[in-house]
């Protein structure tokens, strides 16, 4: 079985709001020195989902190959290497200046072309959304381009013989959805903590291959990739202004504070 995990390198989403800046001329965020970009957390969980399937099927003596792919600049090697250190087998970096400033559709075209080029892919996994754009469209667009079935918001993904069984998160519970491969599944944070990587695995990962594929390698028309293939126009990117002055309630003891707060809430007709 061959599983491909699509990952994206993003600006660290845990960066404090106080250092988060936007260049409103360029409609881009301003990189913060000393803070490295990271794998989008939902994608890290997609890698984990792939490795859980690999662990599970390995116990049944079935062979599973996990390939981590990312479209991005040379620095995106780091997120591919991260996946290899956790236990993935190979990496592919999709790098070409013709891929720059892509939107969801022009990204999906590149990912789908890479997956088609591999030829033997049974299952594609991706995060439910990238934690920068928060759109949640690239995975589904890729599935449409590949013509495969897609299941979103997964918290559990298993192979049971030929059946792909996915537990999907709903607003007030879950549903179990089954399909057959080839398929694409997007992973939600309810999947749980990804495994940690030890030094030994990181060193071993250094020997695993990371291929670099360009537009030419993919045989893709560069009029359909990057900015040229985008349908979305970014009109404006900004940080919303908050205009709330917090009224701090104080007192000698918790009882006094509680009494003051209760009174303020009553005065504001909130209680």
């Amino acid at each position, binding site marked *: 079985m061959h599983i491909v995990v699509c990952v994206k390198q993003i600006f660290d989403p845990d960066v404090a709001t106080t250092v988060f800046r936007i260049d409103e001329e360029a409609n881009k965020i301003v990189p913060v020195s000393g803070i490295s970009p990271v794998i989008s957390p939902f994608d890290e969980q997609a890698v984990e989902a792939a490795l859980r399937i690999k662990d599970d099927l390995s116990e049944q003596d079935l062979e599973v190959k996990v390939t981590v792919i990312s479209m991005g600049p040379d620095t995106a090697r780091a997120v591919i290497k991260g996946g290899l250190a956790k236990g993935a087998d190979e990496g592919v970096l999709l790098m070409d200046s013709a891929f720059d400033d892509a939107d*969801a559709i022009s990204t999906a075209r590149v990912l789908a072309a890479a997956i088609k080029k591999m030829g033997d892919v049974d299952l594609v996994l991706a995060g439910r959304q990238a934690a920068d754009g928060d759109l949640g469209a690239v995975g589904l667009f890729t599935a449409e381009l590949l013509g495969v079935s897609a299941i979103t*918001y997964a918290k559990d993904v298993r192979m049971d013989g030929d059946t792909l069984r996915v537990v999907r998160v709903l607003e*007030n519970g879950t549903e179990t959805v089954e399909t057959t491969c080839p398929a694409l599944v997007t992973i939600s944070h309810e999947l749980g903590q990804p495994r940690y990587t030890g030094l030994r695995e990181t060193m071993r990962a250094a020997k695993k291959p990371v291929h670099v594929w360009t537009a030419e390698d993919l045989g893709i028309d560069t009029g359909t990739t990057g900015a040229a293939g985008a349908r*979305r126009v970014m009109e404006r990117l900004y940080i919303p202004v908050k205009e*709330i002055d917090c009224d701090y309630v104080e007192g000698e003891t918790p009882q006094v504070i509680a009494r003051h707060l209760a009174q303020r809430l009553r005065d504001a007709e909130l*209680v």
Partner: protein
Amino acid sequence: MAFSKDILVVAQVDETNKAAITSLSFEMLGRARELADQLGGSVSAALFGASFETEAETLVAYGADKVTLVEGDLLVPYRADAWLPDLVAMASELSPVLILIGQGTIGGDLAPRLAFQLESSVATGCEDVSLDEDKVLLTRACYGGKAREVVSFDCATAVVTIKPKSLSAMPCDRARSGEIVTLPASVEAGAIRTTVTNRESEELVGQQLESAEVIVAGGGGLGGPEGFQAVAALADVLGGTVGASRVACDMGWCPSHMQVGLSGKTVAPQLYVAVGISGASHHMAGCANSNAIVAINADPDAPIFNYAHFGVIGEFEELIPALTEEITKLKG
């Protein structure tokens, strides 16, 4: 690009409250009505599932000019393969300038596929939709709620999912008239590639978060599931319900349906009390539209105080029971 003048709204039935239209559907219809009036166009609504004739009349009362009821056994529970063929056909025939779908586990699954099939693009979780000369402008949160982007599309139809409680519904007007059409679903069983084999609902304690007037929510600062007992007691005297941050849900202290935030529920109660919640942008993306926010946190630098109308810097352990007692006295 020349505008088509029509707008299509995909209305939804609240699955936990059978055969009731979601309030988000009415919110979408409200904005669709305003925009269609600006353009001189009409508002069509689509509803998928069993027979919903009363509901169709309600959609007209909230602003639809035409309602198409797509009926068929294969449409419930939702699967994209079952809904898409008729939705794509409807959209192709109408070629609307805008298609509005509610953000959620159906909308987030359906909208990108619909956009792809229409050779269009999608903006999810939008908080605002407006028209600017020849463009549809869509405002949405990104970067985990830290930023907002305004986007437009270089294609004819914009497919958009709307975040709950971002737009206002128009008053229900039973005197409005509209056309109601019933359409048997065209999908055949063989074309649906997925099967739903099981559904589990988490037991709802108290009211639903989305409709609660008061929410007391707990986060990582509570230190464990025990802290939620105090939170629940406060929610109880306030006549409200309990919410949680993603940290509290990921730690397993609360079921995930209680999660408020970007990847959880969007709420806008009269009163939102955040206890031990730091106020990360992705949490605030789910509750910043609350009428009033009270923050109780031991960390004076917690970002939650930037959003709060009332704040208490301190430990929750003694404060919450004391507040519960004071509120009980007030209500006496």
